């Protein structure tokens, strides 16, 4: 098993308490950062480490910090609104090792000269929010947060905020609207958060996993971190493996590990449920394009997955075996986007409503052959036309599945039932 970074101590009993966390080197990175580094040096360090955002877009973290406008007050938002279907890594990090996240938040705040940081936790994750709040409280009591941290002269407040339960609030600008007490609506960009963000101040906003990685980079150095992964996708990340595998779960792997290893290796997925044939994989959460079984040897790094025709996204790897009705699966995902569309813009609000009705009709055997191309045309009218990427995301599974499995859609229209899976019409002899 390769060296673990973020999940190294995740299973240590009591690691969620400050005393145990400290026994395992907790807050040493913070002390080192405050003692040995100027804020700008940490930004450089993270740039050098090659760390890229773990929220979905994979933007270089250090570069993001470097863009921050110089005016005060500036803010840090930690995006823990993990809601992407198929993704459950941040939840684990918050529930099991919240101090690692808090330490990352403090170091990042110091690096970005921020004096107020917010941790925005998805509303449904009540336990995670309690764990993070307790860690913050402990950190305050121990002097890691508050006035004059560890005698360095640096002061910081950290506020844990629970969302009210909306997928859109994981979008950075909607998250800030929500934090400010308004409807979770994405904001017009530009201006970007680095210039005008929370309460109008320059704001750096990073994913939970990204910030949980920062202490290790400070402790062990940029070169050490950059030694993992590939040339352009450095380090490790957590893959949330779900679907038709024997051992679903969170697995931390160096970037560039082949998809096949994640799915089939005994240490990880352990193979397909019932040893069936692999049909398709969604590599980065339900917003990314579906890959066919032929892409199983794709290395899991940003560039290779993009070359294969999808995105590494949030690391939510959803595996589908041969008995999966693709129309049913896509319908289920599209319903999610219809329900979670914030409603601000027309194409996403109305388009997803239409897509779901069409998919329902096809799935239940009442579709028309023209519906398939209509689906594609509606997707074209949403994708790139909606206000924020939610609309684009809603179309990924539809366009990629029609491209890969068009015959299944046509079968539904022609035969009025699923081609595969439990709802497929059994051969006449077997039915008797």
């Amino acid at each position, binding site marked *: 098993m390769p060296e673990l970074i973020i999940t190294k101590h995740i299973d240590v009993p009591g690691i969620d308490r400050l005393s145990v966390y400290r026994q395992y080197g907790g807050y040493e990175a913070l002390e080192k950062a405050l003692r040995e580094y100027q804020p700008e040096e940490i930004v450089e360090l993270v740039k050098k480490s090659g760390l890229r955002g773990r929220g979905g877009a994979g933007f270089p973290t250090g570069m993001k910090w470097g863009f921050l406008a110089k005016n005060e007050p500036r803010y840090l938002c930690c995006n823990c609104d993990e809601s992407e279907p198929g993704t459950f890594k941040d939840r684990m990090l918050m529930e099991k090792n919240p101090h690692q996240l808090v330490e990352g938040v403090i170091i990042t705040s110091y690096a970005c000269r921020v004096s107020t940081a917010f941790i925005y936790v998805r509303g449904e994750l009540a336990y995670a929010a309690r764990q993070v709040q307790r860690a913050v409280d402990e950190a305050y009591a121990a002097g890691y947060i508050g006035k004059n941290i560890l005698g360095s002269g640096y002061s910081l407040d950290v506020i844990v905020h629970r969302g009210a339960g909306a997928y859109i609030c994981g979008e950075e600008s909607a998250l800030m609207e929500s934090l400010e007490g308004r409807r979770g609506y994405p904001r017009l960009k530009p201006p970007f958060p680095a210039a005008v963000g929370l309460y109008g101040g320059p704001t750096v906003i990073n994913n939970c996993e990204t910030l949980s990685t920062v202490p290790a980079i400070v402790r062990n150095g940029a070169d050490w971190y950059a030694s993992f992964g590939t040339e352009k996708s450095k380090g490790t990340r957590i893959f949330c493996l779900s679907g038709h595998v024997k051992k679903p779960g969170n697995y931390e792997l160096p970037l560039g590990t082949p998809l096949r290893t994640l799915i089939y290796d005994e240490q990880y997925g352990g193979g397909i449920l019932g040893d069936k044939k692999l049909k398709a994989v969604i590599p980065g959460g339900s917003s990314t394009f579906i890959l066919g079984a032929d892409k199983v040897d794709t290395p899991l790094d940003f560039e290779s997955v993009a070359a294969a025709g999808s995105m590494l996204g949030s690391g939510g790897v959803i595996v589908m075996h041969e008995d999966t009705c693709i129309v049913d699966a896509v319908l289920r995902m599209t319903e999610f986007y219809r329900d*979670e569309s*914030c*409603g601000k813009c*027309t194409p996403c609000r109305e388009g997803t409503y239409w897509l779901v009705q069409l998919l329902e*009709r096809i799935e239940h055997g009442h579709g028309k052959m023209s519906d398939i191309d209509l689906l594609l045309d509606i997707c074209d009218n949403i994708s790139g*036309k909606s206000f924020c990427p939610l609309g684009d995301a809603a179309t990924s599974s539809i366009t990629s599945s029609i491209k890969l499995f068009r015959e299944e859609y046509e079968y539904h229209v022609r035969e009025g039932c699923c081609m595969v899976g439990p709802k497929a019409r059994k051969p006449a002899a077997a039915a008797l």
Partner: protein
Amino acid sequence: MAEEAKNDGLVHLTIDGIPVAVPPGTLVWAAAKQAGIEIPIYCYHPKMPPLGACRMCFVEIEKMPKPPQTACTTPVSEGMVVHTKTEKVLKARRGTLEFLLINHPLDCPICDKGGECDLQDFTLRHGPGATRFDLRKRHYPKPIPVSDRMLLDRERCILCQRCTRFCSEISMDNGLVMINRGYRMEVGTAPGEAFDSIFSGNTVEICPVGALTSAKYRFKARPWELKRIPSICNNCSVGCNVRIDVRVDKIMRQMSRCNDDIDDGWLCDRGRWDFDYVNDVQRLRTPLVRRQPGGALEPAGWGEALGLIAERLRAVKERYGAAAIGGIGSTRTTNEEAYLFQKLLREALGTPNVDHHHGFFPGLRDPLTGRPWMLTTAIADFERASHIVLVASDPYERQPILNLRIKKALKAGARIYVVNESSTELDRLATRVIRLPQHGAGAAARLLLEAALRQENLRNPREEVRARVLGTFQETRQAEALCGAETTAALRELAREIAAAPAALILYDEMATLAPGCANLAPDLQALAVVTGNIDRPGAGVGPLFEDANSLGARDMGLLPDSLPGYRPASPAGLSYQEMLTSDAVKALYIMGANPARHLADGNLRRGKEFIVVQEILLTETAQQADVVLPALTYAEKDGSMTNVDHHVQAIRRALRPLPGARADWEILMDLAALLGHPWSYEGPEDVLLEIAAQHPLYQGLTWESLGLQGVRTGEVEVAHA
């Protein structure tokens, strides 16, 4: 040539091959509009920040990533090349329109908006001819009331969020909000609350579809049946520009006719919907005459009524002298009528007694600036104020559209200070609210002025003010005692702020000057602005907020006992409004468009009056006591000019055929003048305006034509009268 063009401070771009030059920061949508190219919009409204939600205004911009772009959110840049009709753009627009229509009920034949609906119009011009949607539409119960004046049809709503943004950004009352999410999203109010904003009607006007409808206009007319006449609202002194929509000589509705300098495109609900008196069946349609003393008012012909007036006024004049006649003018009739009214009284009847109901302002002019009593700043310049101090004034109740301008100033960074006896709507947005005791405004003004005068580095320390105020401790002590220590301290703190403010604007209500102990309210606040240097600087100023549509015009026209038109002193000065009403020496009262009975405790106008004439539109308390009642016309039935609170002279235009039997006040006055031996030769109000312009420094050079559609602001610089 090209070099020259680059130095004009504008941004140059081409849209569909047409070169356009616009100021930096202009949005592509506005630049296209300037070039005469229509880009369809729903969510965008020029008076609100861009939202980018409806995804209708797509254009393609060369060298920009991910086409198409939204024109309403993209500012222009130098050398930009925009295409509005590429295949990508056209497909995207068709796509959006198809989306908007999948859940739209298409009940255009019974929809108020049909014929002036952006969804209808843009679908025709930019949309697909047919839909591909053959599934279930979203349904709601239709329509639901959101207040007793407005209804909401959620099926027609395209969720552009103009109405909810008006409520959050402009009126700042959040009366309408978006509820729920995604395809279940709808417009609504807070649970159990009505949308009772006094600005609610604006949301009906800016709604691009028929989702929000007014109970008053609902099913009353189709847009293509309406005659649209540009006019001015008659309901308060702001003078908002309206369009009167008329069907068969009835006002159906009033819409905004945006004037950036006055109303900024908004109307209050009073201005929009309170026009019932024009269509009222109780309107006077024939002169009424009391043929016997103590008898009833009986219908009469115009000849008899006017003849009787001339005869009786002559008789009063012969028996008691001309000074026994008094004239009370109106704050809602036109400048021309006010002018002719005082001319009739002063020239034809020879009496100096002319006045109207107004606030108390000592002298014709403020002695410190030498200017007539009026606001020293333009409404549009409120936005440039750093401090807005409202002393005993509540624009929300009395000049509502100024409330919106003050909120706009607030957004631009102004601080608001409310100094008032009772709570006002702006309290919740104010930096400081100073609560006064009853009738405490005069004392507050005194304390503000006194504290300002004690500041070091006063911008404009005027000795005469210092001598007047600092020399009389008694008044200051009385003011302190009335206000109490806490309020006094707050006022002194505010005075310090005003003295140091980059641009303080001090506003007070005209009628607050009439309260006991408030006689010096106007001069003290005027002096406060003068000594703190808050006059003649952008955003700074001081002035009264007048009551009625032509309150300032009435003053300008010399409906004052001590002032002729143009603020020339009248000699001898006549009796004041109160004196005329209460003095036994006045035997005949001529009242035009006023209701003085309301200002008398017992409502009795008689008090020794032998003869009372009233020109009115309805049989008011005052008209009921008259000997002759002459039926007059409303603002919607005549031409003329009005002068608003910041001295915009604006035209009202005849929108309806006059009510049969009634006549315009100016026509009545002319006929009467002729009967009294003064045949005037005006062809119409235009000629009267020319006469006013010839002798009034604040109206110099004005003609009917020059008023145009948006009026002319005069009075900034008074031309010295020869």
